[in-house]
């Protein structure tokens, strides 16, 4: 027994030594890439389709520009993990920190410190507090106005394609009542209806929260409560599929037009079976691509407002502290199979 343990112990000691040597070899083997720009890109979380799509675009741009890219985010959408990662990448000497903040306020002090320590800080997908964080620029996926207007245009187009007339009731199903993105889009949707389609009558919008089940129930109730209902928007990635499902379950396909904001992967079945004719979203691959391109350009010099070409993205609009990806992308039965996010 005694002898056995001692031999076992020696073996384990050798094992530790071997691991140490292996690690030493590993890190010596790493290429030294001091010369290139080093960009750390931090999504809200990893492991979901949307942020895998942005990563694909970011990697594409990084290859084209020959910059070093680390795309690394928390496994849960939590601010403290993002902060931990940003501090880590700063100590690793990264030149650019590009983050999609889970919380625009709580991350701001960390971003400001990163900027003060010499990194170029920019936000994408979601902005941080611009004053507190002092980030240089926000790469915005799509102007809110364009999203609001496109959503209304798609609805009008769809109702007419059904052979119906526009006058009637219309309903928006949102997420939580305080979600600032959704509230801004609704503001522009109302603006578009007022200006272009005054015959569309908007009902009080629903805010069932980010809960698929509740969205579906409340949509089903609305379907029976409003006989004059012509169309429903689902304007979050949770509410949109729920609305489509409720309409399909109520056998109202062809009578109620459904559109909104969602990802092709989750909406594919509804487009294929005709519940949804057309919907929109920005292209997340392009968003990742643009973010890296903008970071690279900002490292070369300044970026005064105007229109610029960023690699394969032409004529991108740059405003004060904001870069706009461009108008949203429309999806329908013809093109939906080209997208996997």
């Amino acid at each position: 027994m005694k002898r056995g343990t001692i031999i076992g112990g020696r073996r384990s000691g050798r094992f530790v030594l071997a691991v140490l040597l292996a690690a030493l070899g590993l890190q010596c083997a790493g290429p030294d890439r001091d010369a290139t720009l080093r960009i750390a890109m931090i999504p809200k979380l990893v492991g979901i389709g949307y942020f895998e799509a942005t990563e694909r675009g970011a990697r594409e741009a990084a290859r084209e520009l020959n910059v070093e890219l680390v795309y690394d985010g928390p496994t849960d959408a939590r601010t403290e993990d993002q902060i931990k990662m940003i501090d880590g990448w700063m100590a690793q000497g990264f030149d650019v920190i590009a983050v999609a903040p889970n919380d625009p306020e709580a991350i701001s002090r960390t971003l400001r410190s990163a900027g003060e320590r010499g990194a170029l800080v920019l936000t994408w997908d979601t902005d941080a507090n611009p004053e507190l964080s002092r980030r240089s620029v926000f790469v915005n996926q799509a102007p809110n106005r364009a999203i609001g207007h496109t959503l209304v245009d798609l609805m009008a187009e769809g109702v007419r394609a059904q052979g119906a007339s526009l006058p009637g009731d219309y309903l928006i199903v949102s997420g939580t009542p305080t979600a600032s993105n959704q509230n801004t889009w609704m503001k522009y949707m109302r603006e578009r209806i007022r200006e272009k389609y005054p015959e569309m009558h908007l009902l009080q919008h629903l805010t069932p929260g980010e809960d698929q089940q509740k969205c579906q129930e409340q949509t089903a109730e609305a379907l029976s409560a409003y006989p004059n209902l012509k169309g429903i928007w689902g304007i979050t990635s949770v509410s949109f599929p729920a609305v489509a499902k409720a309409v399909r379950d109520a056998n109202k396909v062809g009578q109620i037009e459904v559109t909104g904001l969602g990802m092709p992967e989750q909406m594919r079945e509804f487009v294929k079976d005709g519940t949804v004719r057309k919907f929109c979203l920005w292209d997340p691959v392009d968003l990742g691509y643009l973010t890296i391109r903008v970071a690279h350009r900002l490292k070369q010099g300044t970026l005064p407002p105007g229109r610029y070409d960023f690699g394969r993205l032409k004529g991108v609009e740059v405003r004060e502290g904001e870069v706009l990806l461009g108008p949203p992308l429309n999806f329908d039965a013809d093109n939906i199979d080209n997208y996997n996010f």
Partner: protein
Amino acid sequence: MSRPRQESTAAAPAPPGERSNRRLFGLLPWGLLALALMLVFSQVRRPELLVEVWVPWIEVGILAFVMTAIILTGGIDLSVGSMVALTGMVQAILWQDWGWPIEAAAGGALLAGALAGGLNGLLVVAGLSPLVATLATMALYRGLAITVAGGDRIVGFPQSFLDLGRLLGVPSQFWLAGLVFLGMVLLVHHTRFGRWCYAVGDNRQAARFAAVPVNKVDGVLYTINGLVAASVAILGAMRHDASIPDAHIGTELQVIACVVVGGTLITGGRGSVPRSLLGLAVISHLDVGLQFLSSRLSWLTAESRLIVIGILLILVAVWNQKSQKES
């Protein structure tokens, strides 16, 4: 690392090979630490910023020093992460909604921490298993933290408060860690109370018969844990200018991992506070080192890093178990 007397009396008569086993016992954590330190320092390009990288781990360490004492008694406190979140929210709400000055609000947070920890202690004294009791309060305190402010984080603390986030150029967490470490080393290894902790962990029933005030030990330790959790919350608010209701989810597991990797027996009765410092150093540098390394190895994503750390922890746990059985 001083070994308290209780341990030698509790252990079986030392077999001849024990000395070499003991030495081997310490080898794996130290080897891992060397490996992790090498990883970190070979990859770091701005070493002066490591201080910032360490801060979240120092918070874990502060909690681990107190947790060591609790685990020594055979207890555990799973609610520690929830207590940090709850006390942080208490402070923010007393300041923002109740209009208390920020110092008074910090005092309120400490009081809330003592109450939350005290409740844990009461439940344990009442005979509930610490695992069950603190599993329940983990949910309870988290729920409270989220409901008190309607799930919103609170930001915008006064500048004078935020300035306390650094003392003498060092994040205040380091000073608190030093204090708590010294305090716990003194309490656990140099007082009668500390010897009670070992006695309770070794054999609760026997300790009771030997007139050790078991209830007092439990009550005091869980209350200290609540107080220290509140201190971590206050310093966290200074650093980030935010109190976040869903902060520190899963922190309890990191804390317990530090204690166990250090070599403190999860069933109690054996271990020490300095050992938890070793455990903290191993785990934190592995985590940081793997993040650093991931810029070179693309397969080392956030998810696969969890796998690597998990495997290493299993390795250490198996090693500890083996060497404890042998000695």
